[in-house]
């Protein structure tokens, strides 16, 4: 084996094998074996990914064609994997964070019965497989297989406890919302094939190929791709599935809805960055949708009481930031934030899972409080995660968020101001969450208090690792204005994005401006954190809310709005078609024909009287008729 890049196919293949073993053997394998297989395959994938990453870091990117996948006429789509800087980063995030979550799951899901346990790990492995296919595909079609695969797996995992109706409905919602986005993605794909006859990234993203497109076509295609991304990455208008997706087991929320799947949209756009850079209107739309989603979701998160719901809306909001970065042309900042977000959001979700585990399934944080006394490791790691997401200087979230805000400032100061408000809201709701859960006094039942305990090592060790990553993860992207040339992520990703940089308007804010922006946001964030900490650790937010707070608690009534505007009319149309069109008109025609025939034959039946005389009479009449026609009427 000369080069690890020759065996990259093992990276997705191993989780697939793990999925097959766990899925088929779920009845006979013991829980321990399932856990070892499920986590082990991901660990091996991670090690290969790490190895591949160092190869890429040394400058070897690689595209391997394994076999022709679709050959129709002139359209040739090979089954090919592409390992370059962008996919290498995603590989590390998926397999690395994925592995930790698998380990965590072995403890978290331990109370499930054996068959369910195997099924859970099979789904989890299948999910990782799909996600790896998505990022490794060297053309849109392979990417689309993974794209659909993660949609399917999220459906399976959200509805893992499908015996509860609302969970099954949440799974349906996620799947349908995703399908809407997928349709747009597919249309964009067909337009691309129609125009250039290839789906391979390296063939499409060259200036000579892209020169074939008119600006209008580029804008249409990129907008459609973006709609696809809004479905997967939970942006306005297709974001409502993600908060509902919290129905799944908590590690699933961490894996799918925080660390990996929702970043598929970001990955896809980052992959197509050249095309998006050539369509400035699309970038404007993305920036606006991004900031709108960030603010909307952050405002909803302010008033949620379910610990996972807060984190879910926070995820939507952070994804909004990533899209804001893309819309501002700051692709590196988006990728950077994907990475840091994967660390701290996985940490927060897993931490909340640890809390829920200790509380015996309780998710309402009004019934928690004072947990820091009982769960030391969870408390500290969760606090570090909150500090990271809030953007306290020195933690990973600070660097990535600051880079996004700087990018937004370069595009428009208004975007910066809105982004800053969103960041302050983030700091506020995260510390509302933290203080309500871990500070103050315990507000649950006595039985729950008795039951409180720190989680086992399989849960705390992933938390500790993620906490370390959340703290130090930002140092690979120290901004230019602090230390010259220290943004190693930007240097690493330079080959992916350098063509785009040439297209985008140069907007280097002066270093003093950037210092000032970072200073303002840091001071404000620290202020908000201190305020929220004080406010909620003493007197948690328990009373009924009114006015705007109620609107926020009810998520701006967006679900109700969708229900009224889209779901109900469609249901009404459906029941109209069912009751009136189908039953009356379609059935009417079919039954009418039948009834006509049977009525007609019942009438004709009287002709067959059995009276010979009547038969002869008719014969005679017929003959007379023929004679009359023959002799008198025919010319």
């Amino acid at each position, binding site marked *: 084996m000369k080069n690890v890049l020759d065996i990259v196919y093992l990276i997705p293949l191993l989780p697939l094998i793990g999925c097959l073993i766990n899925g088929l053997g779920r009845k006979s394998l013991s829980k321990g074996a399932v856990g070892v297989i499920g986590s082990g395959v991901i660990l091996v994938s991670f090690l290969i990914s790490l190895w591949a990453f160092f190869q890429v870091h040394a400058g070897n990117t690689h595209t391997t064609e394994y076999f022709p996948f679709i050959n129709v006429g002139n359209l040739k789509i090979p089954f090919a994997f592409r390992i370059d800087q962008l996919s290498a980063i995603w590989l590390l995030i998926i397999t690395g964070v994925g592995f930790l979550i698998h380990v965590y799951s072995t403890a978290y899901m331990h109370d499930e019965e054996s068959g369910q346990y195997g099924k859970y790990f099979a789904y989890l492995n299948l999910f990782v497989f799909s996600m790896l296919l998505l990022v490794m595909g060297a053309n849109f079609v392979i990417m689309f297989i993974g794209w659909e695969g993660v949609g399917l797996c999220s459906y399976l995992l959200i509805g893992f406890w499908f015996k509860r109706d609302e969970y099954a409905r949440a799974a349906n919602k996620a799947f349908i919302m995703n399908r809407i986005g997928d349709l747009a993605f597919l249309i964009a794909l067909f337009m691309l094939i129609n125009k250039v006859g290839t789906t391979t990234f390296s063939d499409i993203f060259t200036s000579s190929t892209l020169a074939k497109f008119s600006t209008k076509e580029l804008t249409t295609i990129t907008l459609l791709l973006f709609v696809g991304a809004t479905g997967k990455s939970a942006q306005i208008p297709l974001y409502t599935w993600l908060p509902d997706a919290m129905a799944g087991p908590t590690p699933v929320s961490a894996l799918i809805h925080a660390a990996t799947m929702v970043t598929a949209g970001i990955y896809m756009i980052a992959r197509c960055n050249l095309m998006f850079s050539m369509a400035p209107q699309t970038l404007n739309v993305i920036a606006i949708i991004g900031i709108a989603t960030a603010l909307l979701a952050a405002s909803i998160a302010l008033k949620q009481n379910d610990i996972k719901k807060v984190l879910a809306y926070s995820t939507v909001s952070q994804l909004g930031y990533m899209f804001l970065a893309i819309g501002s042309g700051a692709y590196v900042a988006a990728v950077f934030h994907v990475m840091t977000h994967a660390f701290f959001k996985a940490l927060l979700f897993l931490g909340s899972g640890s809390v829920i585990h200790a509380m015996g399934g309780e998710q309402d944080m009004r019934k928690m409080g004072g947990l820091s006394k009982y769960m030391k490791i969870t408390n500290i790691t969760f606090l570090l995660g909150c500090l990271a997401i809030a953007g306290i200087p020195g933690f990973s979230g600070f660097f990535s968020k600051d880079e996004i805000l700087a990018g937004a400032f370069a595009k428009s100061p208004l975007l910066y101001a809105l982004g800053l408000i969103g960041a302050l809201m983030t700091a506020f709701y995260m510390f509302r969450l933290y203080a309500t859960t871990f500070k103050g006094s315990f507000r649950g039942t006595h039985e729950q208090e008795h039951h409180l305990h720190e989680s086992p090592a399989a849960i705390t060790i992933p938390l500790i690792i993620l906490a370390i990553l959340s703290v130090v993860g930002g140092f690979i992207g120290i901004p230019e204005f602090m230390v010259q040339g220290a943004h190693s992520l930007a240097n690493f990703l330079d080959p992916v994005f350098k063509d785009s940089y040439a297209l985008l308007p140069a907007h280097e804010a002066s270093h003093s401006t950037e210092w000032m922006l970072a200073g303002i946001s840091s001071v404000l964030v620290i202020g908000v954190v201190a305020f929220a900490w004080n406010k909620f650790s003493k007197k948690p937010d328990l009373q009924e809310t009114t006015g705007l707070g109620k609107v926020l608690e009810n998520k701006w009534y967006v679900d109700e709005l969708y229900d009224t505007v889209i779901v109900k009319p469609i249901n009404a149309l459906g029941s109209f078609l069912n009751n009136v069109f189908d039953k009356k008109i379609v059935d009417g025609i079919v039954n009418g024909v039948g009834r006509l025939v049977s009525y007609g034959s019942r009438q004709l039946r009287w002709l*067959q*009287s*059995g*009276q*010979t*005389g009547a038969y*002869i*009479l008719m014969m*005679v009449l017929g003959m007379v008729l023929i004679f009359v026609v023959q002799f008198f009427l025919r010319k």
Partner: protein
Amino acid sequence: MPINYYITLALCLFSIGVVGVLTRRNAIIVFMCIELMLNAVNLLLVAFSKMHHIAKGATAVTGTDGQLFVFFIMVVAAAEVSVGLAIIVMMYRNVHSININFLNRLKH
């Protein structure tokens, strides 16, 4: 004698036959009426044949096909009558009636 007279006579006989078949219920009378119709046709055939013959010239051998036909019809009619009468006899033995309205079993 003009051909019209023959035609009129044959028409009358045929009509009597038809009406008889339609109105009478007695199988034998129905049979007789059928014979009447057959003979009306025979009469016409002979008459037309003779007319043809004269038109072609009295010495000609051709133009007698119609008369030949009549013999065939008479033979067939005789055969038919014998079969028919046999049926009627069998029917009388079975149902003790020769009313044709008894013969409506095919309906069921």
